[in-house]
């Protein structure tokens, strides 16, 4: 069994998934994880939470899959698909290999909030069960690249 450290893609404050204002994330329908309420100090560059291949890349969300098949979803804000990519600058292309901490998307959480949407960032261990995750970072401040939780694989 391997232990996969999943890093925070953005700086902000840790919140429980249950507090995310979207039932799909709050009920962990696509997997367990944590969420980060990002800082509102201007543009933020979201980084890869794990090393692997960018198997899905939308302006507002991406999935990095590790060599052994663990998929980690980072979703930048809630209902941000409706922004159709406006205000999201991609630094990579779908299919690229990334290292943990590599820049993926630059966006402005404050602008998302101004548009009437929550900028909260769920970070999801896709298709994992809650018991697979340990070492969840407690509520409080977090920097991009800090460990959020460990996924036992």
């Amino acid at each position, binding site marked *: 069994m391997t232990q996969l450290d999943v890093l925070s893609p953005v700086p902000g404050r840790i919140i429980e998934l249950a507090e995310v204002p979207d*039932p*799909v*994330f709050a*009920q962990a*329908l*696509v997997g367990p994880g944590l969420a980060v309420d990002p800082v509102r100090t201007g543009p933020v560059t979201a980084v890869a939470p794990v090393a692997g291949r960018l*198997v*899905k890349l*939308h302006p*507002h*969300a991406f*999935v990095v899959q590790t060599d052994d098949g663990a*998929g980690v*979803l980072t*979703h930048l804000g809630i209902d941000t*698909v409706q922004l159709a990519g406006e205000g999201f600058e991609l630094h990579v292309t779908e299919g690229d290999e990334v290292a943990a901490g590599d820049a993926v998307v630059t966006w402005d959480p404050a602008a998302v909030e101004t548009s009437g949407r929550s900028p909260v960032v769920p970070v999801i261990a*896709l*298709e994992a069960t809650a018991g697979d995750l340990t070492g969840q970072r407690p509520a409080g401040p977090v920097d991009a690249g800090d460990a959020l939780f460990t996924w036992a694989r």
Partner: protein
Amino acid sequence: MDKAEQILAALGGADNIVEIEPCATRLRTEVHDSSKVDEKALKAAGAFGVISSGQVVQVVVGPEADTIATDIEDLM
């Protein structure tokens, strides 16, 4: 039937779909008649969950949503 066919059938078929739009984790679907939507069949087709609100049915399928939406559009 493949996944896209099963999901389309469980949503009441092509005639029941007003709009289907993929997001990172789900298919956001607007239907004409929500009583024709079969939640059990959606889950049997592989949906992790179904969130219905009036005529809007969100089928939670995970990050394959964009691929499945394209497959469904091809069937319509």
